[in-house]
């Protein structure tokens, strides 16, 4: 069957070549803050997809915050990456000095209509509004200089402030509006200057998804959206907490209220809206597991466009690790993942504190890169010191998981948010049961999804987030009870072999891409026929 697909592909490529279209790649991957600069679940997944589909040419478009936030590329590009570009949203592209200008008042009027549409939930803007929207950053629409310096822009912002803003501080409103919209001009430029590709694939909503929507509108090429986490949700949590936004009410009100400041709400609505834009123009919209698919639908994705493609791993690859295992259960808890707040490493450390009281031989290893959030890494190390765990908790840094997994007795994941963590599958394939918080698809992975899957048994335990007591208890139940442990190991092995082999994932994506590229050539044929 694979051979057949491959042949189809070559055929498609050939037809594209025949039609004379010059593209730098088949699929343009839009990546926000991940591959190839940041290691992590999403990045390894991207790398896996690119490597797993060697006959498709990929363009990698990275969108980051500021260039200082990223080090060198963390991955070696496979040969089928034929084009790479890197952009930074927070670095204004215009070096132009501020100068007074009138600005295109008509374009701002159109913008008002677009904003009005966006405010009404559910409805999607019509064709001419979309044009106002794609005119962003171009001379006929609103150019970046117009947005930043023009009198028309000033009139528009003050008008909106007078009409809507309930926040008293004008300067806060003004800068929020600026900060919010400045990246859109960078995106518009990326969309304008990206060399031709045949389809685009964004690996999140947010700015990357929005960029996908702009490209889709401008070029009428297929736009695939895959979401690992739910971007909008994560942003909302950040924003609800963010201390850089000051709520006026907090200063003057001491009663209990759930009112959010206008600006906080503005930011949240902004991310909701750009997410909705991405959903409106993407097809299909892929999620990793059922929970997230439902979430996408409730966030505005059309149900018939959504589908689930779970992650997979190369099970064979981990046979080595399985064979290396010794017979007894090593008293080692391993947390494999980046040392960042979302993984809640601290709860892992606290769990170890409790375990150390009861079973002093238990070790905790934290395996993962420590370069993303150095201050958090420090906090964790200091917590280890202050809890007196220097002897039982080790930070091993980035390691080859094939070496580490055989030495673990339990894989622990204390994350407060996850999608479908590959590391659990890797653990299963290497014969390590897993202890994970009840987030994302962790429960599905450990306890099974359908009736049949659940029949395989539990491959570990699911615990509450931020619950060291419960986690320690669950860990001891598995470590102290070899029978239960072995049952969990068996269930994990069987589950990963049956449902999460990467061959399944590759063939799903191969099909998706195939359909998209077919649609593209049809679209191209239509276009060339029309002219």
């Amino acid at each position: 069957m694979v051979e057949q697909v491959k042949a189809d592909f070559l055929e498609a490529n050939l037809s594209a070549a025949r039609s004379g279209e010059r593209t730098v790649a088949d699929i343009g991957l839009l990546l926000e803050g991940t591959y190839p600069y940041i290691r992590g679940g999403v990045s390894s997944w991207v790398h896996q997809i690119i490597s797993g589909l060697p006959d498709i040419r990929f363009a990698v478009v990275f969108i980051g915050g500021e260039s200082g936030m990223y080090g060198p590329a963390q991955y070696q590009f496979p040969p089928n990456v034929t084009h790479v570009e890197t952009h930074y949203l927070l670095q204004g592209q215009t070096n132009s000095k501020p100068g007074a200008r009138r600005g295109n008042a008509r374009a701002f009027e159109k913008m008002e209509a677009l904003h009005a549409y966006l405010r009404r939930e559910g409805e999607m803007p019509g064709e001419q509004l979309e044009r106002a929207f794609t005119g962003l950053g171009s001379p006929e629409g609103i150019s970046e200089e117009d947005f930043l310096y023009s009198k028309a822009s000033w009139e528009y912002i003050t008008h909106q402030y007078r009409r809507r803003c309930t926040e008293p501080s004008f300067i806060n409103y003004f800068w929020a509006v600026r900060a919010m919209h400045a990246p859109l001009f960078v995106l518009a430029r990326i969309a304008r200057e990206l060399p031709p590709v045949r389809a685009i694939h964004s690996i999140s909503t947010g700015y990357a998804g929005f960029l996908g929507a702009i490209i889709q509108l401008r070029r009428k090429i297929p736009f695939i959206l895959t979401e690992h986490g739910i971007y909008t949700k994560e942003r909302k949590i950040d924003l609800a907490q963010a201390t850089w936004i000051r709520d006026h009410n907090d200063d003057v009100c001491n009663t209990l209220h759930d009112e959010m400041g206008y600006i906080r709400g503005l930011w949240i609505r902004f991310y909701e809206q750009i997410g909705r834009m991405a959903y409106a123009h993407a097809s299909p919209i892929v999620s990793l597991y059922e929970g997230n698919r439902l979430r996408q639908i409730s966030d505005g994705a059309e149900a018939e466009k959504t589908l689930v493609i779970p992650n997979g791993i190369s099970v064979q690859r981990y046979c080595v690790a399985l064979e290396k295992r010794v017979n007894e259960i090593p008293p080692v808890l391993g947390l494999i993942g980046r040392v960042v707040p979302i993984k809640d490493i601290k709860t892992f450390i606290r769990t170890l504190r409790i375990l150390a009281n009861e079973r002093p031989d238990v070790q905790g290893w934290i395996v993962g890169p420590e370069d993303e959030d150095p201050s958090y890494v420090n906090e964790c190390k200091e917590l280890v010191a202050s809890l007196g765990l220097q002897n039982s908790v080790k930070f091993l840094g980035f390691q080859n998981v094939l070496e580490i997994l055989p030495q673990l007795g339990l894989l622990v994941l204390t994350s407060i948010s996850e999608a479908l963590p590959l590391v659990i599958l890797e653990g299963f394939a290497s014969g390590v049961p897993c202890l994970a918080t009840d987030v994302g698809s962790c429960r599905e992975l450990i306890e099974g999804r359908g009736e049949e899957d659940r029949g395989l048994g539990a491959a570990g335990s699911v615990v509450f987030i931020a619950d060291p007591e419960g986690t320690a208890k669950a860990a001891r139940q598995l470590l102290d009870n070899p029978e239960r442990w072995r049952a969990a190991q068996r269930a994990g092995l069987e589950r990963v072999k049956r449902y999460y082999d990467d061959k399944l994932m590759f063939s799903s994506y191969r099909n998706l891409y195939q359909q998209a590229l077919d649609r593209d050539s049809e679209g191209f044929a239509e276009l060339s026929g029309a002219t």
Partner: protein
Amino acid sequence: MAGIGFEIRKILERDSYWSVLRAYGYAGVVSGGPWALSILSIMMIGILAVMLGVAQREVNAFQICVTYLMAASLIWSGGMQLMFTRFVADRAYAGEQAEVLPNLFGALIITMGGGFALFAPPIFWLFDGPFFQQLLLLTNFVVLSGLWIALIFLSGMKAYRRIVWTLAKGYTIGIIVALAASAWALNGLLLGVLAGHGYLLFSFLHHIVREYPGNSLLKLDFLDRKRSFYSLFAVGTLYYLAVWVDKFIFWFVPHTSEPVIGPLRASIIYDLPIFLAYLFILPGMAVFLVSMEADFAEQHERFYKAIREGDTLMHIEYRRDRMVYAARQGIYEIFKVQGITVALCLLWGRDLLHAIGISPLYIHLFYIDVVAVSVQVLLMAILNVLFYLDARREVLLITACFFITNLLFTFATLQLGAETFGYGFAASVSLSAFLGLFILSRKFNRLEYETFMLQG
């Protein structure tokens, strides 16, 4: 830098005629003091010296020398005055008070040392008097240049009584030393002026040094491109050039002037009325200090505070209106008080000239000069408001206009004949003031837009 304005306004708040008189008296001395007191004291030295038997020729030479020294030192230090004022204000705003002192010494050494190096060759080359006289001229110039720099701290000081007292002492010393040394004729008189100005320079410096303790003796940070504004340097230089260019033209055009000493020439018909007229800007200057440096400065501060501290747009606009009102009120008050002064001069000018023994031939020139210098006070007030709004380009445009029109119009009056003398300067300053008003009103209209959208 508006410390003194606030202090003086406090006297006004006591609300009696005596306090009003006192407040404006102080304000007049502080703001117009160095200008007017110099003119007065030099006239006085001249009159007293003649009474003591110094030859009229020597006294004339002395007065011309001092006038040239004033003009040259003002033009030379004008740029630095403005640039350094801004530097000090920025440092004060940034809370880096300790930076002020070393940079003040830096500004002084550059102005004084540079002035010395630049003016020593022409003085020694062009004057054929004794070495001592040349040295006196040069030293006088250097001290004056330094004094103008030190005086920019005046409006920032709060101790107005001490300032007035120091000014009085300085000019008294100048007069006494000049008269005591009048036996040496010109040299003695120059020595007196030097002593007076030297006392003022070092006395103000003494106060400043004690007021702003620093962390080192000498720094040249104010020359740093990132921290200072060379456009302000150009504005300062252009402004003083504009103020003096008509006088220089009259001094060096043969049929309006005569040689006095060395290369220096004077224009009897032009000089006396204009210097006399400058005495009549004191009321306007006093109002300027109280209304601009206090009322407007306060409203300006509140406006930017409203922006910084996150007020509503409506409140920001309200504050803008208040600020515009304060500026308008200030300009209007100057207009009023200078208007009355002009009217009084028109009424009693003839008697005045007669009383001090100046030929009534000068009367028309005197009238037009009083009008011109009154408008000059207005222009100064407008420029000051624009400085507060940080409209550096606009100010440069206005001063350039002032300079060029004064140059052109003055030449034009030379062609048109003696009855038009003085009208060139008056027309130039009025035109610039109108231009300033126009720019100011435009600036005010788009103030929030420019403040928010065009910063950085």
